[in-house]
């Protein structure tokens, strides 16, 4: 039986759910769970003071009812379990997560899946800045897992990403895949500014309007790539609707030349 969580108060005082994840509390009783401490503004409160809970934590399946957009660090560092949010969710959701899944039916705040290492995050709406990105001072952003965004994404999507798959149906802001180390970012909408600045390796598939690439990106050939069907199957496996243009030859652009030109930007013709 899933655990259903509903916020008690409608105020916007930020709540910090660090350390309270489905896998961390699955061995607890409901009463024990509600005694867990969470930050509410500048105070530490028992979870029971801020949410109403029904169900059993043992299943490691949480259903979040209502708007949780002022609740941050949800699922941060989780290694297993599932969180399903009926509406929006706050910042740092799924940051550094290692496994399990987070499904967000609304919008997600900044730092969604930042430095995540595994698992699946699916956002039906839009995501804020730094999704799959790296925290300031960190060498690497997302290091594994899958991040799927049906709407638009903010700035610095996949910044310093090292591994994993990001797919965005909509547009992306500036700094897309900046200093990308490896991994795959697919974007069906448009992106602001120059994508892939400083990228070392990795694949950036841009299927929307042609982007303004820096002159340090070198145009390559046009070829169909046999890996596309595999990526498409992976997206379908997660129920992601956007289709990679199949059969069409891709224009390959190598970059960033200032960093070895081992990365690739693939543009649908």
């Amino acid at each position: 039986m899933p655990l259903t969580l509903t916020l008690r108060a409608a105020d916007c005082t930020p709540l910090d759910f660090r350390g309270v994840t489905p896998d961390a509390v699955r061995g607890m009783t409901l009463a024990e769970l509600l005694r867990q401490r969470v930050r509410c503004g500048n105070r530490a409160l028992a979870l029971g003071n801020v949410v109403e809970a029904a169900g059993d934590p043992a299943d490691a399946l949480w259903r979040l009812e209502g708007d949780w957009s002022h609740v941050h660090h949800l699922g941060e560092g989780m290694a297993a379990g599932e969180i399903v949010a009926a509406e929006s969710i706050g910042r740092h959701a799924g940051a550094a997560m290692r496994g399990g899944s987070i499904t967000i039916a609304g919008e997600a705040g900044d730092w969604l899946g930042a430095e995540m290492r595994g698992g699946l995050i699916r956002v039906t709406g839009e995501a804020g800045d730094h999704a799959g990105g790296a925290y300031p001072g960190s060498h690497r952003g997302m290091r594994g897992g899958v991040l799927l965004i049906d709407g638009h994404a903010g700035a610095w999507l996949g910044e310093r990403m090292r591994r994993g798959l990001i797919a965005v149906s909509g547009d992306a802001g500036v700094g897309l895949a900046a200093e990308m180390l490896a991994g795959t970012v697919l974007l069906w909408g448009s992106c602001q500014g120059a994508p892939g600045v400083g990228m070392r390796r990795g694949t950036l598939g841009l299927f929307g309007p042609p982007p303004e690439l820096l002159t340090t990106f070198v145009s390559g050939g046009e070829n169909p790539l046999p890996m596309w069907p595999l990526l498409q199957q992976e997206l379908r496996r997660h129920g992601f609707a956007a289709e990679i243009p199949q059969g069409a030859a891709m224009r390959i652009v190598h970059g960033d030349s200032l960093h070895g030109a081992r990365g690739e930007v693939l543009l649908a013709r």
Partner: protein
Amino acid sequence: MGVAPSFRDQWSRLYDGRTAVRIGSTLIVDTFAEAFRMRFARLIVTAADAHWLDAACRAVCGYGCSVIGCDTEAGVERQLAPGETPDGRSGAAILLFGFSTDALAKAVPNRVGQCVMTCPTTAALNGMPEAEETIPLGKHLRYFGDGFQKSKLIGERRYWRIPVMDGEFLVEEAVGVAKGVAGGNIIIQGVDQSTALAAARRAVDAMAGEAGVMTPFPGGVVRSGSKVGSRYQQLRASTNDAFCPTLIGRVQTELAADARCAYEIVINGIDEPTVAGAMRMAIEAAAGEGIPAISAGNYGGKLGKFHIGLRGLFDAAK
């Protein structure tokens, strides 16, 4: 020289009328096929069209008949529709058998590197991702990319994209290895060569496309069945004289009285029941007019772990 005819008489006494299993006029000899435990890998090869798929399959399965003299026993398990392959193209599942995982670890990358990577438009993928044991494939072949290769981790599986002259060769990092059964066989005895050949082809056709089995020899048929050992010390195997029609009278023959030609069909498979099922299928297809007997090859039961009795195949069917 009176010994040989007496054996033929003995054969007649043994099999004529004594609780024999017959399919039509064909006697199913009460003997067994002796099969061996081997390791196998399943490779999925895909290509842009049937022509290049066939070319790749022929090349990668070439010189892959018997581990007596080849590095692996290789054959096409079945053709795969685009919907069955990871990359959505036409493909084929190829089974490669070796005595050990180490032997496969040498042979499979060699074969794929020389026979699949070289073939236009192809890709080589793991046909057993669920296997507990794996051998490297793209992990070795990637170096052909000379630093321009790229890896892509999709789900839990890593692929290598090696730049080649027609685009990219996509190869999976590793392929799964599992325990299989090799050396299941039947020996079809015909009244003449053409009748025996037709029966052998019926048998092979009956098994074609059957999941979990393959026939490693040319066209699925062996004419030079072997026995263990030789009077020449350097040879591990030599002709199976008991089934050679030209030696009737010189050796203790195991050919039926009317038989003048024999063909062996060797069947490797993923497990004993699958091999046994394929043997039964082959026997049923081969039996008929002009095939006085169908037998099987064994080594007295001392070498192989699996003894697949021919009569048992039909007892189980009942």
